[in-house]
């Protein structure tokens, strides 16, 4: 639910950014001779970082021509055998693929590359993403497990694995993966909130004693996320959902005590209402949150 919201707002910024692509690219090509002269300048690496981000934005907003320009410039600098450039090239091919057959071709190309160089991580990840978009989820999971076996300190991969498991309805496994991710980045409040969400979904599928145990855990993770990040909307949303009185009153016994949970619920409600009224009083372009996010909050508040 909330994940799709966040993706939506990202798309908007991506579109804004890629609209400036032609301007940025034009600037860079005229300034290129200058930057080549100053090889010694230390800012060089930032430029290419920005270029890579611009590439992603262009791909997202289907501005394939600008994306190709970015890609060519990166290839010219780092060579086509650079691992990251290879992955970007693959991403471009996937994005411009016309049919399922050409996607299969991409997959074969990745397998080829990997048979020469089995630790090419960017390509390994690209291959998993491609498997996922070809809806071969179980293949994607098993290859991702292989990758994680070799690189158990990769946050991105653990998070991806959690989403894959969750999409298959395997909540306990998803919880495990997110916990692994959190062990690497223990202060990531968004991951805490996501973990809380997954545990909540899992808890709702159980009943009785087991459900309240999971619910408790989920509430704790939401609490942690709002403790780490002041006024974190998603954390409070989850907190209000997980501590809703209809659930809490059913419980026979909870470690934290019913009163605490109910006052947490009141707190979360108050925070959500504050955010809503503050956002609604602002002008549209000054708002921090999307229209859809705010309407979700409104729905939640009226439904509870």
């Amino acid at each position, binding site marked *: 639910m909330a994940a799709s919201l966040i993706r939506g707002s990202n798309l908007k910024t991506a579109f804004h950014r890629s609209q400036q692509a032609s301007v940025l690219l034009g600037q860079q090509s005229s300034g290129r001779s200058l930057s080549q002269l100053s090889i*010694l300048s*230390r800012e060089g690496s930032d430029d290419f970082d920005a270029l890579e981000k611009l590439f992603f934005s262009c791909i997202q907003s289907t501005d394939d021509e600008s994306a190709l320009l970015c890609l060519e410039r990166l290839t010219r600098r780092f060579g086509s055998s650079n691992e990251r450039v290879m992955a970007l090239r693959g991403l471009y091919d996937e994005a411009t693929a016309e049919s399922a057959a050409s996607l299969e071709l991409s997959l074969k190309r990745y397998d080829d590359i990997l048979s020469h160089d*089995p*630790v090419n991580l960017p390509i390994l990840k690209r291959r998993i993403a491609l498997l996922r978009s070809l809806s071969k989820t179980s293949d994607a999971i098993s290859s991702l497990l*292989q990758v994680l*076996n*070799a*690189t*158990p*300190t990769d946050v991105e991969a653990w998070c991806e694995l959690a989403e894959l498991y969750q999409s298959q309805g395997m909540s306990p496994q998803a919880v*495990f993966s997110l*916990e692994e991710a*959190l*062990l*690497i980045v*223990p*202060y990531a409040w968004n991951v805490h909130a996501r973990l809380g969400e997954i545990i909540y979904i899992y808890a709702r599928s159980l009943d009785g004693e087991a459900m309240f145990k999971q619910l408790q*855990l989920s*509430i*704790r*993770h939401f*609490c*942690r996320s*709002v*403790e780490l990040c002041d006024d974190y909307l998603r954390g409070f949303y989850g907190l209000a959902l997980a501590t809703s009185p209809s659930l809490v009153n059913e419980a026979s016994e909870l470690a*934290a005590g019913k009163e*605490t*949970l109910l*006052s*947490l619920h009141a*707190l979360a409600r*108050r*925070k959500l209402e504050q955010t809503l009224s503050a956002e609604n009083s602002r002008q549209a372009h000054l708002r921090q949150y999307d229209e859809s996010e705010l309407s979700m909050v409104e729905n939640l508040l009226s439904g509870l």
Partner: protein
Amino acid sequence: MALQGLEQTILRDPALFYWILIPITVVMILTGMLRHYATVLMNTPPKPASTLAESRERLTLLRAVNLRNHASAVLSKESFEMRKNYLVTGFQNGAFLKDPNNRGQPPANPMTDPAAMEGMMGMMKGNMMMMIPQTLIMSWINAFFSGFVILKLPFPLTIRFKSMLQSGVMTRDLDVRWVSSLSWYFLNLFGLQGVFGFILGSDNAANHMAQQMGPMNPAAGANPFQPGQDPHKMYLNEAENLEVFEHFCILDGIEERVLRKYGAGEA
């Protein structure tokens, strides 16, 4: 020794200033910059793992360290115990090793292992970058500029500084405030750090300290094992650390903490 209360005066040719003091300073700055760029050019990044098994061998150790450092912030008791048991068993029976059959054997001689050789070559190159220019410049200064008294400090110093400030000038009675050319070289050698930081940025390779600290803190993704170290021993070590780790969970009582935090904000 200098007479107390009597100002020593030495008539210095102003040319000393232009032809010794300034050249030494300029040369020192230029060699520092040259060394920085030479190090950047010759620097070989640490070699990434060439197989998945090797990468696992390296990173699993980091995973255990992460677990130990962050478990209290994330995990409940059960999930911590589960992970601990998994890692400890794996460490003890060598499941994470690149080739479990070699466990317990003495480590290969680093001289015969090409990967270890390469690491050593890298270190050697770094050391050479420091040694060679310093020797050259030092002998150059010694040959051309030794024996000059080139400047006078504007403040008095105790006699102990004599050996530091007047190397190369063998006079017993000269006031400590006079600085010889060779000493000026040494002062530059150790005192230009700030200038290099200004010209080249703070993480420059002209810096002695950075040179010495370099191998101590490997970048992320680098090999946690030094050449010649036996991974299995490191694993056993880490397994022991995990065994004695006392777990507590900061999620305990977080509900009250959050209430207090936001409650205080409201009131």
